[in-house]
C-alpha cells in the first residue's frame, strides 16, 4: 500500500496519521530476568515470586544469561546494531505493581540499537507493497506485577507472579501511516520473534503487547503531539486503537482544542481510548545506572554463538522457496509466514523426496499444492492448525507418491485421502483393499467401449459427422463404466481406434 493512501477526512480537509509502536515482548526463558523464580503463565497468585521479586530488604538482582542471549539474537534477526557494552538503569516511580519502587530497564545504553523490519502489507498478496519500518532500539527490562480491582470493594489485590519476568521493549520509529500497516508490522515482528524463539508471541497471555503512539498532521506537515495508549494486547485492538485515537485527535483539533501528550488506555468493550487516571501526575523517573549491577559486556564468543544459533528467517526462506523450489510467490509467502508452517512443510518435502526417490525441488510444487489445497481444506473444516494435522508428513507423502507413479489418479487420491482421515489407514493399504488401482487392462476397457458404442448409435453418428466435441462424452462414459479406475491415456487411445 502506498504511504499516502490512508487518510482521515476532517472538516478542514485530509489528515495523515503517524504511528510508532513500543512492543513489549516477553523473552522466552524458564526463570525471571533477575531471580530464578519460574515464568510459567497462569500459576497460583504469588506462587512464582522470589524474595528478590518481592523486593525484600537486602535482595539483589543477578542477570539471566538466556534473556541477554535472546535479546541479542532478536537484534541480529532484524539486522540491528548489537551493543557489546550496555547497562541497566533504574526507572523510579511508585506503584503497587512495582515492588522495588523502580523498574530495572535500559535507558542510556540499550543492548540493541538501530535496525529495521521489512513489512509486506499483505503477505498473502505478493504484489502488495513492502516497506522497511525502522527499529530505534531494543532494550531489556523487567515486567511489573498484576493488580486486580474486582476482588474487593475497597481494595486492589497485588499478584507479583509476573514481577521480574524478562521483557524486550522493541521501539519502532514513527514510520507507520495506517492501522493496517501497524497491524502488518506487529504480525511480521511476531513472526520473526517466533522464528528466533525469543518470544512465543502469545498476545492473549500478554506475552506481547504494544504501547501505541499516535499523532495526526496535515499530510507531510509538522509532527503533531502524540498520545501513548498502553498495553494493547491484540492486533485487532491495535488497529481499533489507532482508528479511534486518530479520529478523536482530528475532532479535538478541528474543534479548536489541543492534544495533550498523555498516557491512555484502550477499553476493548467500548472500542475507545481514555486517559489513564493512575498515570496522571507528571512523571520524573530519575533514571540512573543500577548500582547493584555491573555493565553488560558481551564477548565475541557469546555473539558468535547467538549468530550461529539463528534459524533461516522468513524473508530468506520465502525467497529460497521461490528460487530453489520454484514455488509461486503466493505459496512461498503463505508457507513461510509462520515458523510452524514452514517447519511442517520442510519435513513434508523431505518425506516426499524420499518416497518418490526424487529431489526436493522436483516434488516441491506437488507437495505445496496438495498441502495448501487438500490438506488446508480439511484442516479448516476440522478447525485445526497444521501442527495438529490428522495426517502426518510421511502418510501424506505416501499418498502423493501413489499419484506420481500413476498407481492412482488425482481424483482417486481425493477419495483415498478422505478414507485416510476416517480410518487412519495408510494410502497404499486403502488403494489395495478398495481396489482403487488404475487399470491398464485393454481387454476390459475395449469391452466397455464396445457396449457404449452399441448403446449410443446416434451419438456415434454425430461424432463421425464431425461433432468432435462428443469425444469427451465417450471418455466420460468409459471412465464412469470403469468406476474411474481406468488409465485415461489408454481410454483415449482405444476410443480413437474404435471411433475413427
Amino acid at each position, binding site marked *: 500500500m502506498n504511504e499516502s493512501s490512508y487518510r482521515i477526512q476532517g472538516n478542514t480537509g485530509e489528515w495523515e496519521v503517524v504511528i510508532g509502536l513500543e512492543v513489549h515482548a516477553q523473552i522466552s526463558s524458564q526463570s525471571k530476568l533477575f531471580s530464578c523464580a519460574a515464568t510459567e503463565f497462569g500459576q497460583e497468585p504469588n506462587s512464582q515470586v522470589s524474595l528478590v521479586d518481592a523486593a525484600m530488604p*537486602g535482595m539483589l538482582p543477578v542477570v539471566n544469561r538466556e534473556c541477554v542471549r535472546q535479546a541479542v539474537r532478536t537484534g541480529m534477526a532484524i539486522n540491528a546494531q548489537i551493543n557489546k557494552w550496555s547497562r541497566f538503569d533504574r526507572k523510579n516511580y511508585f506503584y503497587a505493581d512495582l515492588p522495588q519502587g523502580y523498574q530495572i530497564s535500559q535507558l542510556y545504553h540499550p543492548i540493541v540499537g538501530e535496525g529495521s523490519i521489512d513489512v509486506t502489507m499483505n503477505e498473502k498478496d505478493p504484489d502488495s507493497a513492502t516497506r522497511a519500518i525502522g527499529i530505534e532500539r531494543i532494550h531489556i527490562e523487567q515486567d511489573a506485577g498484576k493488580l486486580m480491582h474486582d476482588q474487593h470493594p475497597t481494595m486492589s489485590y497485588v499478584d507479583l507472579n509476573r514481577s521480574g519476568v524478562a521483557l524486550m521493549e522493541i521501539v519502532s520509529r514513527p514510520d507507520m501511516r495506517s492501522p493496517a500497516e501497524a497491524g502488518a508490522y506487529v504480525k511480521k515482528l511476531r513472526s520473526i520473534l517466533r522464528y528466533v524463539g525469543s518470544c512465543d508471541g502469545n498476545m492473549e497471555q500478554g506475552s506481547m503487547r504494544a504501547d501505541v503512539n499516535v499523532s495526526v498532521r496535515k499530510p507531510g506537515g509538522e509532527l503533531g503531539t502524540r498520545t501513548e495508549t498502553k498495553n494493547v494486547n491484540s492486533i485487532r485492538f491495535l488497529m481499533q486503537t489507532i482508528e479511534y485515537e486518530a479520529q478523536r485527535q482530528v475532532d479535538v483539533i478541528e474543534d479548536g482544542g489541543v492534544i495533550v501528550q498523555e498516557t491512555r488506555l484502550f477499553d476493548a468493550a467500548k472500542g475507545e481510548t481514555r486517559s489513564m487516571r493512575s498515570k496522571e501526575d507528571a512523571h520524573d523517573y530519575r533514571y*540512573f545506572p543500577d548500582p547493584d549491577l555491573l555493565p553488560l559486556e558481551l564477548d565475541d564468543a557469546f555473539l558468535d554463538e547467538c549468530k550461529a544459533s539463528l534459524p533461516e528467517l522468513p524473508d530468506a526462506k520465502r525467497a529460497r522457496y521461490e528460487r530453489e523450489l520454484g514455488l509461486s510467490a503466493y505459496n512461498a509467502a503463505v508457507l513461510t509466514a509462520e515458523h510452524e508452517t514452514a517447519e511442517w512443510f520442510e519435513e513434508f518435502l523431505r518425506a516426499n523426496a524420499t518416497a518418490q526417490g526424487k529431489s526436493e525441488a522436483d516434488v516441491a510444487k506437488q507437495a505445496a499444492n496438495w498441502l495448501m489445497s487438500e490438506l488446508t481444506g480439511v484442516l479448516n473444516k476440522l478447525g485445526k492448525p497444521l501442527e495438529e494435522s490428522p495426517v502426518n508428513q510421511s502418510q501424506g507423502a505416501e499418498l502423493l507418491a501413489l499419484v506420481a507413479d500413476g498407481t492412482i489418479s488425482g481424483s482417486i487420491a481425493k477419495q483415498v485421502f478422505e478414507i485416510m482421515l476416517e480410518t487412519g489407514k495408510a494410502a497404499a493399504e486403502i488403494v489395495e483393499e478398495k481396489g482403487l488401482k488404475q487399470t491398464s487392462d485393454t481387454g476390459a476397457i475395449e469391452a466397455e467401449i464396445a457396449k457404449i458404442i452399441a448403446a449410443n448409435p446416434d451419438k456415434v453418428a454425430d461424432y463421425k459427422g464431425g461433432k468432435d466435441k462428443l469425444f469427451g462424452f465417450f471418455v466420460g462414459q468409459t471412465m464412469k463404466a470403469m468406476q474411474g479406475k481406468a488409465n485415461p491415456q489408454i481410454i483415449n487411445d482405444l476410443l480413437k481406434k474404435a471411433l475413427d
Partner: protein
Amino acid sequence: MSNLTDLGVSAIRNGVLSGEFSAVEVAAAFNAKIVKAKALNTFIVETPDMAITAAQAVDDARSSGKPLGKMAGVPIGMKDLFCTEGVQTTAASHILEGFVPTYESTVSANLWKAGAGMLGKLNMDQFAMGSSNETSYFGNVISPWRQGNDPAPLAPGGSSGGSSSAVAARLCPAATGTDTGGSIRQPAAFTGITGIKPTYGRCSRWGVVAFASSLDQAGSMAHDVRDCAIMLEAMAGYDPKDATSLDTPVPEWEAGLNSDMRGKRVGIPKEYRMDGTDQDILDSWDKGIAWLKDAGAEIVEISLPHTKYALPAYYIIAPAEASSNLARYDGVRYGLRDLPDGAGLQDMYAATRAAGFGPEVKRRIMIGTYVLSAGFYDAYYTQAQKIRTLIARDFEQAFEKCDVILAPTTPTAAFKLGDKSDDPLAMYLNDVFAVPASLAGLPAISVPAGLNKDGLPLGLQIIGNALDEQGVLNAGLAIEERAGFVARPGEWW
C-alpha cells in the same frame, strides 16, 4: 579462670578449642554482661538463647571430635542492618519495626557456619545514615567512654555505633559493621577498637539492608587486628547472589599476619593535612609515621589531589542511591503501613514514609531525589561520578609510589551527643578522611593510636590497594604493637 568477657576472638576460639573453657560458658558470660548494660542502649534485640544454642553446638562438635570453624565458640553482636532469619531486623527504623526476615544474610550465615553465635541485633544509625548514632528510631547509643568524669554522654560514632559501643564495653568480643562512608572506621576510632572495611565486593551484600549499593561493604569490628582478620575471613567470600561480589578466593589473612614492614613503602597524603583537624590527631599521625618507620617501612609523601571533593561527591552519590534503594519501603509487602481514612495508594505511600523514616533519612532521600531529578542529573550525579573516577585514579597513581597509605581516621575524637545533631554539614565532615577510600572501594582499617588530652581514643587509618587487605592488616598490626593501646572505659553503667 580469667574474666571471659575480657577475651577477644582468637583467645576465645583458642580457649574453646583447647578446652580451657566451654563455648557455653563464654556465651553465658557475655549474655550476663549485656543484661547489665542497658544504659548504653547498644542492642535493639537481645538473643541470649541463640548465643547459647550456637555455643552448645560448638561444645558438642568438639566433644564428638568434629573439626571446629574459624569462629567456633565466639559469640558476636550483629548490626541490625543484616537480615537474620526469625529475628526482627529494622535497620534501626520505625518503618521496618516488627519486620522478621524469612531469610539469612550471606555474611551472617557465613559467620554461623564458622561457629559464631548471635548475642543480639545491634543498634545503629537509621538505615546506616549518621556518624553519631543519634538517628536510630530506638534511641541513641551511648559510648562507654567518658571525658574524664564528665557524665555527658559521648557519641560512639556511626553508623555502626551499637557495634563499636558494645565491643568497647566488652558486651561482645566482636561485632559486624557496615561501612558506606566510614561507618566502621569512624566508630572504631571513637571507641578505641579496631575495625576493617574490606575491598568492595569481598563481603556479599545479599541480605544486608541497602543504603548506597555502590559503597556499602560489611566488615569486622573487634579489639585488635588479629581478631578482625579472623572474623573477616569468616564473613568474606564470593556470593553468586550478589552481582558485585568478587569472584576471588579469600586469603588466609590471619595466617598471613606479619608486622615486619621492611621493604614496604607507606604513603602520607599531603592533602589530608586539613585545617580544622585537631592537633592531637596530627600528633597521633606523626606517631604513626614514626611507628611504621620503626617497623622498617619507608615513608613517602604522596598526593591525592581530589581529596577535598570526595565528601561532597559522596553526599550526591550516596543519597541518590539511597533515594532509590529506600523506595521499597512503601507499606505494601512488609513493615509499617499508615493508611489515613479514605487515603488512596499514593497517599498511603506518603503517610507511611513520613511516619516511618526519621529526619536524617528523609533529608537524604530528598537530596537524592533532587539530584536525580529532571534537569539536574548531569550537573550533580554525573559530575559526582566523574569526580569519583578521578578520586579512584588518585589512589591508583598513589599506589604506584607506595604499598599502603597512613592517615587519621577522623578529624576529631568523639564528641558529645547533641553537639552536631542540628548541623548536618558539621556532622558529615566527620567522615572527611574515611570517605575517599569508600568511593574508590579500597580496603581500610582503623586501629587505636592512643588517647587525646581529654583521655579519649584516637584512631589511625591504613588504606590499601584493592584486594590488599593483608597489607592493610599488617601495617595495622605494626601500629598496634607499637601503640600499646590498653586503655579501657570504666564500667560506669
